[in-house]
Every structure is written in C-alpha cells, then in structure tokens.
C-alpha cells in the first residue's frame, strides 16, 4: 500500500503541472482543444495560418502548421529540409512517416508522388483525428495512418520484412524525446527496413551532450551521414542511408532536376542542398562520445544541460 501512495503523488503532481500549463494564454484563436492520453492538443489559427500545438507554454511546441488558403505550401523550415532526402533517393515509392503531426507532410508527398504508398505511424489516436478534421489529412488505400508506438511498428515491420524507400522520423519535439527511438538498437531495426536506395531522415532537437551521443549513435549504425541545419534554431535533419552517400556532383545534379518539381511547395532544393554537410568532411562531435543504447538512453536528461 505504501507504494500506492508514491504512485498517487506522482499523478497529483503531474495534474497540477498540466493544469498550470493550460491556464497560460494562447496566441491567436483556439479553434479546437482536447486532452488526449498523451498530451494537450490545441489547434490555433491566426491570420490564415492554422497550427497544431501540443503544449501552450513554449514557442517551440508548434507541431505542424498549414496555410489555410494554400495548404500545399510548406511553412516550417525543417519540413522543407526533409526534402533533402530526395537528393539521395529521388523516386521513393514506399514511404514511412513516424510522427504524423497535422499530416501535412503526408499530404504534400502524395501530391508530389501520387503513386507512392505512405504509411503514417502516430502514437496518439487523437492526433490522427485532429489531422483529419482540421488539417485535411488525406487517406486512401495507399495512404494510411496507424495508431501505434513507432518502435513497435518498426520492430513488427522488420519481422515481416517490409521495405521502405524513405523513412521520416519526426517523433521528436523540443519538449520531450521518446528515448527508445534514439537508441542504436532502434536505428538498426529502422535500417533493416530500408530498401537498397532507402534513406532515413530524422528531425531532431538535440543540444549539448545529447547532440554528441546522438551523432555518434547514427554514425555507428549508418556510417557517415548528412547534417542539414538551419542557423537560426537548434533542430537538424539527420540524413542517413543504408548505402554509401552519393557524391556531391550527383547530388547537385539531382537538385537541379528536382528544382521545378518542388518549388510549388515552397521548397528551394538548391538552397537546401547548400545546407547539407557530410560527416565525412565535418564531424562536429568528440570521437569518443558514448552511444545511446536500449541499456543507456537518458536522452531527456542529457538534453537538459
């Protein structure tokens, strides 16, 4: 019974924290809000921009935004940077997206590649519902959303020997990192899902020590990879491939041929290409950084410092 008291205390404290987070004022007009099993979900709209938010307090919690009148024009820089993946594999047919958000990425990819099958994996069923109702998330028999933990989906897909040409790992946000999606074992499972030309793009927010550990872990699993970074914030896209990375001239050539195809979506692939830095030329973490494993992955604690 004494253990029960400990557990109850944790519940009470977390409730107090959640309600205090809720009481802070929100920007713009809130058109929908709900409390799901995992988080508070808010849909806000101001001057034609509709955004999905998971918490109110910090500015970095916008998960997904959409221009109501131009839903195909991508808003966030990081979503645009994800398209650097196409320079490694220009013709993805089977796409796996872990972390749905508003479903804008899935929608845009469907427009660019109407024949591609897209599997979206989202842990929170409420987020899938909100994506459908407020962000026009499009589904058909080839474009699906599965309510499941990303790690479990990947593990099962590996057992049934599924292959994907493009895996987008977008399950991290600035507030909380699912630690079991950062480990060497997970990345190995994800790598086993990649087709011959497959590419994995992870949108991550690591700073300080976690940046070093995360980089070392990706390098251990995939070998050299590309960092795609914006100067103005601390998120980066890690671009990894099961094969060796293509040479710079091939990438530049692909960027040229993709330019026209991507510009309607507000994606300047030539500029994005300039932001790609291979770890073969610049390794910006200490050689001896420890790896994150299922046995050791205090990602959120490392990201605090």
């Amino acid at each position: 019974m004494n253990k029960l008291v400990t557990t109850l205390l944790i519940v009470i404290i977390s409730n107090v924290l959640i309600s205090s987070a809720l009481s802070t004022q929100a920007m713009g007009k809130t058109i929908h809000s709900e409390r799901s099993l995992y988080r508070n979900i808010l849909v806000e709209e101001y001057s034609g921009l509709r955004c999905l938010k998971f918490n109110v307090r910090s500015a970095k919690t916008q998960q997904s935004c959409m221009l109501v009148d131009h839903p195909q024009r991508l808003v966030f820089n990081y979503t645009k940077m994800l398209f650097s993946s196409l320079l490694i594999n220009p013709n993805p047919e089977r796409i796996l997206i872990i972390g749905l958000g508003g479903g804008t990425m899935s929608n845009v990819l469907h427009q660019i590649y109407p024949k591609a099958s897209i599997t979206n994996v989202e842990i929170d069923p409420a987020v899938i519902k909100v994506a459908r109702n407020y962000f026009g998330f499009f589904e058909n028999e080839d474009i699906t959303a599965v309510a499941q933990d990303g790690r479990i989906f990947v593990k099962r897909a590996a057992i049934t020997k599924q292959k994907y040409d493009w895996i987008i790992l977008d399950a991290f946000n600035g507030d909380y990192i699912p630690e079991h999606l950062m480990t060497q074992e997970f990345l190995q499972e994800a790598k086993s899902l990649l087709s011959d030309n497959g590419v994995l793009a992870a949108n991550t927010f690591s700073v300080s020590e976690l940046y070093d550990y995360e980089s070392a872990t990706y390098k251990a699993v995939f070998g050299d990879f590309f960092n795609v970074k914006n100067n103005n914030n601390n998120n980066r896209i890690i671009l990894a491939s099961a094969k060796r990375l293509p040479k710079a001239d091939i990438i530049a050539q692909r960027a040229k041929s993709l330019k026209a195809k991507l510009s309607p979506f507000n994606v300047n692939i030539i500029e994005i290409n300039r932001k790609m830095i291979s770890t073969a030329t610049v390794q910006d973490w200490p050689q001896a950084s420890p790896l994150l494993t299922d046995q050791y992955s205090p990602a959120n604690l490392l990201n605090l410092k």
Partner: protein
Amino acid sequence: MTNENNNTVAWQNPMIYLLAFSSGFCIMGIELLGGRILAPFFGSSVHIWGSIITVFMLSLSFGYLAGGKLSTKAASLKRYGLIFICAGIAVLPVAFSAQSIMEAIFLAIEDTRYGSLLASMALFFVPTVILGMISPYSVRLLVTDKNKSGQVAGFLYFVSTLGSALGTIITSFYLVLWFEVNDIIMAFSTTLMVLGLIAMIFHRVNQSKSCLNSHAINQQGAANE
C-alpha cells in the same frame, strides 16, 4: 520472546530498519527501470506503466500475505536474511533473460497492453512477491510489546517508504544517467544478497552470544550449587 530479545546485539533493530529501507529502495528502483526495459518491445505509452504498476501492486499484496504467514513459524533473522538472498537471486533474470522473454511475448501477443502485462508478470512477479514479504516479517522481528506494535509498524513503513521515494528519484534522476540498466539491476541484486548475508551473520552472532550467556548462567548455577 523477551528472553530472546535481551540476548540480541544492540544493533539488531537498526539493522532491520536499514534492510527494510533498502528493500523499499530496490523495489521502486526496479519498478522504474521496468519502463526502460519494456519500452523497446512494448513502447512507452501510458498502458506500459499501467501494466508495470499493476504487477508491482499485485505482487506486493501477495508478498505481504506470504510474509505475514511465514513470520508465524519460527521467525528468525536467519530466515529474514534468506528472504533477501532469494529476492536478490529472483531479480537476476530481469538482467539476464529479459530480452529473450520479451521477444517471445512480443511475437506471441499483438496487443501491447496484454503483451506488456504478461512481460511485467514474467519479469517482476516473483522478485516483487519476495520483496513484499520483507515488511510484515520485519514487523514480526521488531515488535516486542503489543502496545508499541502500531508505533513499530508505523516507523517501519516510514523507513521503507522513504527508501522507495529515494529509490525512485535517485534511479530516475541519476542512476540512468550514469549506468546501464542491467548494471543498476545487478547492483540492486547484489545489495539485497549482501544485506541478506549480513542478517544471517547477525543471527549467528546472536546465537553464539545467547549460547555463551546460557553457558555462563549454567556455570553460575553450577558454582552456586
């Protein structure tokens, strides 16, 4: 019973409290690591914690029952120490066979709720039942006066729950940052076994002491004659 207590080493009660504290510490430390251990196979959704907490509460409840029952027959520090040693051994599969157990359950059960529940059962039921036996057994060893039984039980709960609180915070804030999960589990196991051994050594010392005492009394008696 009072006779028995007169002959014990003065440190016996503080030692029992220390052992109860440590068992509380280990229980919650292991429970917290349970989330870490299950996550690669069953995710980190809220129902994982549901499974883990259910199994720990259930096992503790059975443990309290069993510990109380066991304490009615020839309660001794030796048996108390044995409980700790058994607990330490029962914790070991969490470090050594968790991977293969969880893999088998992952393949057999699609629903992560029941998968995680079964995995928690397989990994944590036995060690937590044994750890649960410690509290009632400690009460039996500590209580000498019926009037003070409530006070003794209260102080025991205080100590062991304080241990649980510290086990939770130290494991989640620091130990996972410094060590691998299996190393922490092994440290808990070793701690439990060492404490069990200490309790058994105390039992020995007590025995030889009371032996000496009774010997002395006998001798005195003989001399008087």
